[in-house]
């Protein structure tokens, strides 16, 4: 009975925060597939360790603390890394930001859909290439007859625009 209650409590809390954990993992390992693999593993670890979670502490801080350890293990086992990643101290700072500004980031996530809808058709088309079809910057450049630099610049602009629209911060 107690186990069941603990399971339910875990599900309740984890469901609320799994997006945050996934976003953090994405920042740590870069690729979606790696982040998804890691999320699978970390979810189980969080569930197993949930009886050690102190409800007086923010769940996000606890979960991301565990996630950092799992990320380190994962990256040690993954021998070949093709892209450079953010160092652990920066990830720690980001984890603290998530724990501290969780409300702001959650609200931003909720606003994202309406912000995407406000984008110009060409901008949404670019996002479609990048996020729906999963094309790289180079592939998008080939497909749209633009330079890679132009694609990069446009993506930067769209991301800033969405960040400003979701009220996460001034897009200076």
């Amino acid at each position: 009975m107690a186990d069941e209650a603990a399971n339910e409590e875990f599900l309740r809390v984890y469901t609320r925060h799994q997006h945050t954990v996934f976003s953090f993992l994405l920042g740590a390992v870069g690729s979606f597939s790696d982040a998804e693999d890691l999320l699978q593993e970390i979810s189980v670890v969080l569930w197993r360790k949930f009886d050690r979670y102190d409800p007086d502490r923010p769940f996000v801080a606890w979960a991301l603390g565990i996630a950092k350890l799992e990320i380190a293990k994962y990256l040690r086992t993954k021998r070949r890394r093709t892209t450079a990643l953010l160092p652990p101290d920066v990830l720690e700072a980001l984890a603290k930001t998530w724990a501290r500004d969780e409300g702001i980031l959650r609200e931003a996530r909720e606003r994202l859909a309406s912000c995407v809808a406000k984008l110009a058709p060409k901008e949404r088309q670019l996002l479609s290439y990048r996020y729906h079809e999963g094309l790289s910057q180079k592939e998008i450049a080939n497909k749209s007859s633009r330079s890679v630099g132009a694609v990069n610049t446009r993506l930067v602009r769209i991301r800033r625009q969405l960040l400003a629209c979701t009220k996460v911060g001034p897009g200076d």
Partner: protein
Amino acid sequence: MRFFTLASRYLDQVASEEEVAELAEILRKSATRQLQMAGLLEQHANLTRLAAVLIPRPEERPPLKFEPRARDPRGPALALVAAVLLGLLALSVGLSERPDQTAAGGSPSASARVRASSSPAATIGLQPTPTKAAPAPSASPPIEATPKTASPTPAPAPRRTPLATDPTPISTPPAPTPSPAPSLTPAPTPVVPVQTPPTPTAPALCRVLRTSGRALRRGEPLTPGDSIRAGEELATEAGASLTLESLEGTQLQIGGGAQLSLTREAGTQLDLHQGKVALVVKKTSRKAPWRVVTPHAHATVVGTTFEVEVRADRTRVEVFEGRVSVRRVAQRRALTLRKGRYVLISPGKRALRALKRKRPRPQPKGQVVLREDFQAMTPGEWPRDWKRPRKAEAALLEVAREGQNLYLRSTAPDGKKAQKGSLPISKLTPPFSVEVRFRLTGQRSERVGFNLWNGVDERRYGVDYSASRRRLTVFNTSHDEDLLDEAPQQVEARTWHTLRARFAGKKIFVGLDDAEPLSVELSATPRIEELWLVSLGRDPAHFDEVVIRRP
């Protein structure tokens, strides 16, 4: 600008090692950039899911304008499909996390809410739905595959309870009733009548950094971490204080008995109806200045430190750094106030005149400074609404000040009426030492020590002695990480002992009584902003004296 380019290249995995190093350096230096990076990562993660529903693939886009199209008979059906998809999407992306939602699985109320409140539904309804099925959310929950057996986990390690209540708790809604279904789909949540904010879609302008005493929003107490939205009326009770931080880093220190609200339109406007507010305004663009509006005056500022006090008959504005433009409510002509000047504005038409302070304000540098509410307190008196933490108890203390030393002394060491003591300190930097004289009562569960809030890296450190483990520890409460865990000499119950901690640069030297101190190195030189004295246990230990000493 460089930050966004680097961050975007990092997200697309095309950043070189040098670029990632540069990005890391920017993130290390700026909390605002850290928040923006977290926002970009959230955006990056969620766009994958949104793209399948919200963003039409190029070949599926409708013909461009100028060609009148016959009404598509599939329109209503497509709109319905889109609405359902959007409802599901909303649940997966996070709208389902709202406490006032009813149930998982695209309940009628959930999709109705989306259709009614957001423009994307209308956009989708007018465009062909993507033929490709929406992929499953990338962050799909894995728990269904790993059902929990009766006892799958090893015995839990002794849990470390943070000594003090967390100063930045999650501002979560009341806990809903857990779902009986063992899956990670959003759990059903009871509909709880919630007081509707005045502007539910208003952006968050600030967050609460600290509170002391009662600070209220629509009658509800504020806690650190809460977001403040445009148009919300805030108030502090007499003797209380509230510190807010805006997204760009401007800090507002609001004194007791204040009433105010914030709005944003071409900058941020603080409507101060009553009370005193000190602002440390970050240098923002001239297009987005901070304005303080009182019943008597308007003050406009870009990157400075100043204070505004409103009484019934006048407003007083004083500038500590930079310049502030001040004008009467009904006049256009403004007075520019420089550093060290102040102006009194009362009703009337007299020209405003800048006055100079006769005596400079005492600067907090180089000395221990008590907060306003502590300075006003007489020894032995504590705020009536002092929060009693659920798990922590501590002896009641008296506060006394002598030169640069600060003394706290217990007056009711019977344990039954114990309270938690807190000593806020403004920017206390090493070298300094903290000595806590305590006496254990003999209960095994006792722990005694103090916690520190480090203003540099926003970590919380604890220094304590645990009677059950018989160990002296220094730990990072933010990350549950032991920095030191040693067994000192025997600490006898019912005998007075002294826990000493000396802070020098990045190092802390910790010891009990006269034993040789052990050293711990922190990641950065701390700037202690708050110190809590806490004793845990059913029958808490007694504090006799706490001394904070600066050489």
